[in-house]
């Protein structure tokens, strides 16, 4: 550890969420770089300001919302000077000066002074009983007032005002909300949703006076009432001003730092003085100021990165979403929902259920969403909004949400607030709501990744992700976990899948270490997530040239069998198009008996699975199956799995084409190919669709006049019917289109991204254009697939059973006996 004397000094002004989050992120990246001092005017550690409303409402205590206790500062060798206010920054000598005149030198300075409530310049605004709503001190005063007085007026019908009003009402006061406009929360809600909200708050006893302008606050020793523009008056013992916040940048401005509506910062969160950084509500970045918590976390990360001298991260601004924290009212809004000539709207309104949803589209993308009553899909819409997904192919079902698109998992639950603690959220790992809430509060978790790591919820199939995000938002009082717009490939890098794929081609990178070196991987050897991904990308980019790295393959693909829970393996030989012979069945039966294979099971893909094979028996099992003419079914592969068929025109009285024959043809052409995720095909001989082709990755439905080609279906975690791609007349064209489609997916899909997800991301029209409409491109794709197949169509079982490939893999290194 560096000596304190030699360390650089970092001074943080502001002990709130933005400043401390930056310090935490900095400690993760460079724990010993700085000697850190934090100044905070409030006499507390760092607390979650967003949860002040539940404290006011009596649903949480101040202790519940503490994020960093005084001990935390000590444990991390941080000097916390709470209750001390900085009066001046002396940039010439690089010192800050406290209000008591104490001078503290800095090498780097972080300003995180947050914001102040706007106090309207009304007559009487300084009377006792008139307060803002910003910190624990304000909350304490409100709670005190609620025990001594009866009538409260809240000025401001925005998020903060309504939460304050709700809290005071819960504390037994008569509350009137005064709002200048005729829509509540007009920055987040449209008039319809605002009306629904008003109605439901009125049912709880809240009184509204709107539109109304406050003209004066009345009283002599203490507030006694409020007078409005229309001359009417209202009695009040407490007036809460919640009309907005204003970035607090006085200190910065006095120090000569350039400020407009906030402290102006660059994409690296630096002010015009490079030694001085600023984050949070006090800053203005690309003309924007933010009053919500998610952007401040993004900023903290970037700032910490720069302070840690890892200067590659930049802040590009944030899109924000809001939830109202009034228990029992579900409300979500995100993005831009003001009507406009180039915008389209999809609206669903069900007055009896109290549900209202409005999705605003522009250029085929979601730009805004307002949800009332049923907000389960809020994070899902928000994700598409941030990602800029082309949603045109799901437009007609969009308003019904993820579940109706087969994208919302299987739980059928839609409101976490109403769930009991025992309700199971993650079915894969058996995690219930209470356990998640407990982990979030006890371990100070903020992001989806944190929750996944600590509780395992949402870490397996991911279908409960929306619910877990809701639990997070519900417990923390805000949406912290929105994934970054561009997702890094894994934690070992900041680069996205697309970046990596592009750079591999541009820089002609041909080994995993070369990619990691060039793209500055953060870990030695990567991890179990990125290595298989890189191995696939290199294999798909350089067929015949790249040497498959067995140590970067998941075990199933390394030993060409599926590992089972007891460490044994399962073996599935290929049955072309689901057709077998007496000879093959006899050989399978013989193998099962010879090797004492405990379970023989028919799979869902029209094949036979031999389960419970010991690893060292695998080569011998394969040798026997090879002898009977069978090869690997790749049932373990991110590659072509099965081609399920019905009997078609050869036997079936309804069959229109030879679906079995076509299935066999497709499988013989495509087997052995590696793909981003597994690929399953189906071919049905008529629209009765007995091969269930319309829920496969690629499906063919034969009709009398030809072949309908469908793709992007799913029938597992998510249930999703296929999209219709095109119709062709011959088997050869069918093969050409399907192969070209698969090749495009191989070239563009992200590792582990199933075809339907890829289609969601890229857009059906884009894919159709390049695979169907552009014939030259289709033929080029087909040729690239065919080229790659030369190197892929070697039976991996035969290589290992009789040609000695990977011999070491299947035998122990040594056997030790007792002494």
């Amino acid at each position, binding site marked *: 550890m560096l000596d304190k004397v030699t360390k650089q000094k970092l001074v943080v002004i502001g002990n709130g969420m933005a400043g401390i989050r930056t310090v935490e992120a900095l400690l993760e990246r460079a724990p010993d770089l700085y000697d850190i001092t934090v100044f905070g005017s409030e006499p507390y550690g760092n607390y979650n300001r967003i949860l002040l409303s539940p404290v006011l409402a009596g649903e949480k205590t101040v202790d519940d919302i503490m994020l960093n206790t005084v001990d935390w500062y000590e444990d991390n060798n941080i000097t916390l000077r709470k209750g001390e206010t900085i009066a001046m920054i002396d940039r010439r000598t690089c010192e800050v000066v406290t209000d008591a005149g104490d001078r503290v030198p800095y090498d780097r300075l972080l300003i995180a002074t947050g914001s102040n409530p706007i106090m309207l310049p009304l007559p009487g605004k300084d009377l006792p009983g008139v307060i803002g709503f910003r910190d624990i001190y304000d909350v304490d005063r409100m709670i005190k007032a609620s025990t001594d007085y009866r009538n409260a007026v809240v000025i401001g019908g925005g998020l903060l005002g309504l939460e304050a009003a709700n809290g005071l009402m819960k504390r037994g006061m008569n509350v009137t909300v005064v709002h200048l406009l005729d829509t509540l929360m007009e920055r987040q809600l449209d008039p319809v949703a605002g009306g629904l909200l008003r109605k439901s708050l009125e049912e709880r006893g809240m009184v509204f006076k709107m539109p109304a302008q406050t003209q004066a606050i009345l009283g002599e020793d203490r507030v006694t009432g409020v007078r409005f523009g229309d001359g009417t008056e209202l009695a009040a013992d407490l007036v809460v001003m919640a009309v907005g916040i204003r970035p607090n940048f006085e200190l910065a401005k006095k120090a000569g730092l350039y400020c407009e509506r906030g402290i102006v910062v660059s994409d690296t969160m630096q002010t015009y003085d490079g030694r001085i950084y600023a984050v949070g509500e006090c800053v203005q970045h690309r003309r924007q100021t933010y009053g919500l918590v998610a952007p401040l976390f993004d900023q903290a990360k970037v700032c910490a990165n720069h302070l840690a001298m890892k200067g590659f991260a930049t802040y590009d601004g944030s899109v924000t979403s809001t939830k109202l924290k009034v228990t029992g009212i579900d409300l979500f809004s995100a993005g831009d929902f003001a009507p406009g000539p180039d915008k389209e709207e999809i609206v669903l309104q069900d007055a009896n259920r109290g549900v209202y949803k409005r999705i605003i589209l522009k250029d085929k993308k979601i730009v805004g969403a307002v949800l009332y009553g049923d907000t389960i899909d809020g994070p899902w819409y928000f994700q598409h909004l941030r990602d800029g997904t082309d949603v045109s192919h799901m437009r007609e079902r969009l308003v019904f949400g993820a579940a109706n698109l087969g994208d919302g998992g299987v739980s059928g639950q839609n409101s976490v607030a109403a769930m009991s603690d025992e309700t199971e959220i993650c079915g894969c790992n058996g995690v219930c709501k209470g356990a998640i809430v407990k982990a979030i509060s006890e371990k100070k978790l903020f992001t989806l990744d944190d929750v996944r790591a600590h509780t395992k919820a949402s870490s397996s199939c991911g279908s409960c992700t929306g619910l877990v995000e809701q639990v997070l938002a519900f417990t923390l009082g805000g949406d912290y976990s929105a994934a970054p717009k561009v997702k890094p490939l894994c934690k070992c890098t900041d680069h996205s899948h697309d970046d990596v794929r592009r750079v591999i081609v541009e820089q002609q990178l041909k080994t995993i270490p070369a990619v990691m070196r060039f793209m500055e991987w953060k870990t030695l050897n990567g991890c179990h997530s990125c290595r298989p991904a890189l191995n696939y990308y290199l294999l798909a980019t350089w067929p015949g040239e790249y040497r498959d790295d067995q140590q970067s393959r998941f*075990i199933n693909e390394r030993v060409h069998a599926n590992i089972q829970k007891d460490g044994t393996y399962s073996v599935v030989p290929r049955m072309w198009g689901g057709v077998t012979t007496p000879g093959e069945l006899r050989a399978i039966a013989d193998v099962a008996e010879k090797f004492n294979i405990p379970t023989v099971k028919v799979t869902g893909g029209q094949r036979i699975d031999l389960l419970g094979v010991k690893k060292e028996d695998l080569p011998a099992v394969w040798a026997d199956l090879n002898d009977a003419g069978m090869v690997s079914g790749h049932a373990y592969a991110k590659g072509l799995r099965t081609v399920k068929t019905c009997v078609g025109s050869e036997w079936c009285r309804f069959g229109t084409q030879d679906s079995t024959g076509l299935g066999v043809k497709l499988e013989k052409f495509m087997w052995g190919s590696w793909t981003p995720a597994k690929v399953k095909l189906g071919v049905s001989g008529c629209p009765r669709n007995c091969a269930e082709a319309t829920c496969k990755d690629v499906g063919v439905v034969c009709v009398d006049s030809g072949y309908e080609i469908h793709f992007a279906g799913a029938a597992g975690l998510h249930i999703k019917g296929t999209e219709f791609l095109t119709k062709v007349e011959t088997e050869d064209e069918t093969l050409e289109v399907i192969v070209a489609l698969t090749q495009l997916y191989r070239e563009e899909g992200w590792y582990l991204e199933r075809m339907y997800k890829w289609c969601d991301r890229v857009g059906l029209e884009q894919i159709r254009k390049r695979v169907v409409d552009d014939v030259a491109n289709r033929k080029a794709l087909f040729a690239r697939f065919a080229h790659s197949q030369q190197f892929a169509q070697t039976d991996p079982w035969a290589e290992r059973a009789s040609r000695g490939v990977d011999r070491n893999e299947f035998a*122990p290194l040594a*056997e030790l006996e007792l002494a």
Partner: protein
Amino acid sequence: MTSWIEIGALDDIPRLGSRVVRTPGGNIAVFRTESDEVFALDDRCPHKGGPLSQGIVHNKRVTCPLHNFVIELASGQAVAPDEGCTHTHPAKVENGVVWLSVRQAAAVS
């Protein structure tokens, strides 16, 4: 006293890979890192008993193939926030030969 047993050549273990040594007390997984260090651990993940020898090795860690627990090769500890520990055994390389020290076991068959 530690008694060392010769278990094979370093080159018989793939870099960033593992081989199994059978013992009467259960399998031991012997790992080789990129820089040719070797580590020996019981071939059982502390989570649900998965065979660690079948996992992906990265730096000085292995990821269990069953549920992605990550185990430190040197200590056998699960990487936080996961919890659990796998028993480790002393192992070393001398002149390209791998040696292992296991209580109760003595002879190579």
